[in-house]
């Protein structure tokens, strides 16, 4: 229920005339989109003020289905585009939807600098460990030994921990969640949207059709259950009876800081300059 007391209805936020959508049956991206729109609904953000910027890949195609101001830009560049948009229009709620390839490979440089600047943008990265749209090639987050169309003998490269990267680069808020915990994911996204600064949220999604099939990971339901078994939610932080195991992936809100937001500090800086020079 949102603040106006209305029940969340995803259809209020979709361009249904574009249906059927392109996602494969069982794809986790649809659940992530639902959680994002749910969080937006709870925060009662006006659709006219919502701007979604997405890059290339299966993640990038989600934006078109949202009934808002949507920008589908070049591969890896949604954060760069969003930086310009947000600086030009601080009144907009700017949200980036990206994928592991878009954000960590071709767009990696933009990610670290977006974290460092701490401009008030929310970035949702859908991590499905693979380049799904191009047919299933290895990505910077593909788990070791996994098969993809470009790792026919199994992946031998180490995996990027996107959240650790974002935190180290200074992101205002960092979170991670699996799609199975949809309400939990909604809450993390909601915190990200509400945070004054750059929020980076990694969604552990599942590419059933391409990655799952190639690696014999079973149905979508089986894939998300495997994910569930591999994570360690933040609310178990102090649970003595469930000790943390090093192979577990932490979920929930992983980091938060109150570094000054970029646009705000720029404005303050300029105003101070103007006062000093007497032409305020």
């Amino acid at each position: 229920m949102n603040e106006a007391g209305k029940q969340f209805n995803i259809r209020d936020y979709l361009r249904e005339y574009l249906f059927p959508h392109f996602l494969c049956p069982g794809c986790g991206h649809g659940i992530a989109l639902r959680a994002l729109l749910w969080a937006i609904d709870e925060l009662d953000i006006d659709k006219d003020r919502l701007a979604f910027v997405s890059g290339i890949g299966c993640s990038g195609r989600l934006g078109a289905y949202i009934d808002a101001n949507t920008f589908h830009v070049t591969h890896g560049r949604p954060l760069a585009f969003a930086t310009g948009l947000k600086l030009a229009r601080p009144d907009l709620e700017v949200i980036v939807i990206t994928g592991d390839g878009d954000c960590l490979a071709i767009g990696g440089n933009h990610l670290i600098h977006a974290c460092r600047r701490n401009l008030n943008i929310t970035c949702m990265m859908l991590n499905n460990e693979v380049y799904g749209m191009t047919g299933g090639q290895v990505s910077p987050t593909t788990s070791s030994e996994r098969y993809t169309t470009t790792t026919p003998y199994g992946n031998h490269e180490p995996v990027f921990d996107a959240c650790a990267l974002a935190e180290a680069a200074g992101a205002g808020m960092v979170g991670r969640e699996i799609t199975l915990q949809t309400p939990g994911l909604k809450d993390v996204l909601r915190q990200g949207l509400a945070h004054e600064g750059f929020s980076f949220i990694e969604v552990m999604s599942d590419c059933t059709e391409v990655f799952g099939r190639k690696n014999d990971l079973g149905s979508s339901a089986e894939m998300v259950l495997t994910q569930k078994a591999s994570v360690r939610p933040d609310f178990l932080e102090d649970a003595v009876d469930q000790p943390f195991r090093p192979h577990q992936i932490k979920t929930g809100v992983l980091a938060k800081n109150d570094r000054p937001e970029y646009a705000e500090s720029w404005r303050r800086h300029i105003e101070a300059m103007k006062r000093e020079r007497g032409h305020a």
Partner: protein
Amino acid sequence: MPDSAPTKTVNLPGNHACALGAIAAGCRFYAGYPITPSSEVAERMSVELPRVDGVFIQMEDEVASMGAILGASMGGMKVMTATSGPGFSLKQENIGYAAGAEIPCVIVNVMRGGPSTGLPTRPAQADVMQARWGTHGDHPIVVITPDSVPEIYAQTIRAFNLSEQLRVPVVMLYDEALGHLIEQVSLSGSGDIEIANRKWAADPKPEFQPYASGDDLIPEMVRPGDGFRTHTTGLTHAENGFPTQDPELVDQYMRRILDKLEIHNALIESFEAIDTEDADYLVVAFGITARAARRAIKQAREQGVRVGMFRPITLWPFPVAAFESIVGGKHGVLIAEMNAGQLITEIERYRPAGCRVDGLNRIDGETITPRQILNSLRELADNE
């Protein structure tokens, strides 16, 4: 003009004139990345923009600065970035996005020599073809080549006007020598500059088609927040803004974005013709080389060879009609350019029968001198 700021005459390097022209044109957002010999454009913008409530940002790379200006442009601002060869290469990806999604923006390329890192501090004119064809696929683009500091100022203003009116990326193309040359510029008072703005759509209606246009082939633009809630994509799209592969709609879209420049050619075309009427020979030169040519044609006339000059100011689309009307009946054309022969290929396409075409090319990081042009002209006249 009681209300407008008075016209001021100042000495400025070309790169500063470019920045001030941008501010005068209404540019309020600049994103860039340092690169020689264009950095002074960014430096001056970083001083000027805060004074007019604009935004300056130095991005993490050239790709990002191009991306950022497109985001700001879609937010409703007039935007610019500046770079040089290596950076211009990196910007091509998003220049294509701007051409395809029809996002107004101005890109300054202060040319330096050589492929790759080349000659960072030496002038060249070797990005003629890159400026036209740097990004992939058939696409519309306008390229402007000033030949003096005052013209950099005036043409930067015009670049914004064209970009905003036609929804097309406009490239300001000049070389290192002009970028660092200091000349007197009279900065127009605010009242006497002609400023064109993009065409904004009025009230949001549910049936609004963001890429539908009237006879002018230019769709109206919308600002996020105004209630239109449209989609923008680099994918080939239908009039509703959403991707399509329907051959008919693809064809319609491709032809419209290309034809829009053609039907607005009167607005875009600009050139200078000096002493061309009675001339037997023509020098074609642009930018810094045109300055040497100006002197060379005078000297040639003193020696009894009747020469004129055709200087494209709008380099792309090449002012074909103007050139053809001038070149008719000439015995020979000399194309002087600081590259291995790029503009000459375009000139050869429009060469009248019986007209000899020679190239004078300098690729050593130095500018072409009047003497070199004069010698080439004599050779052209002797061998014709």
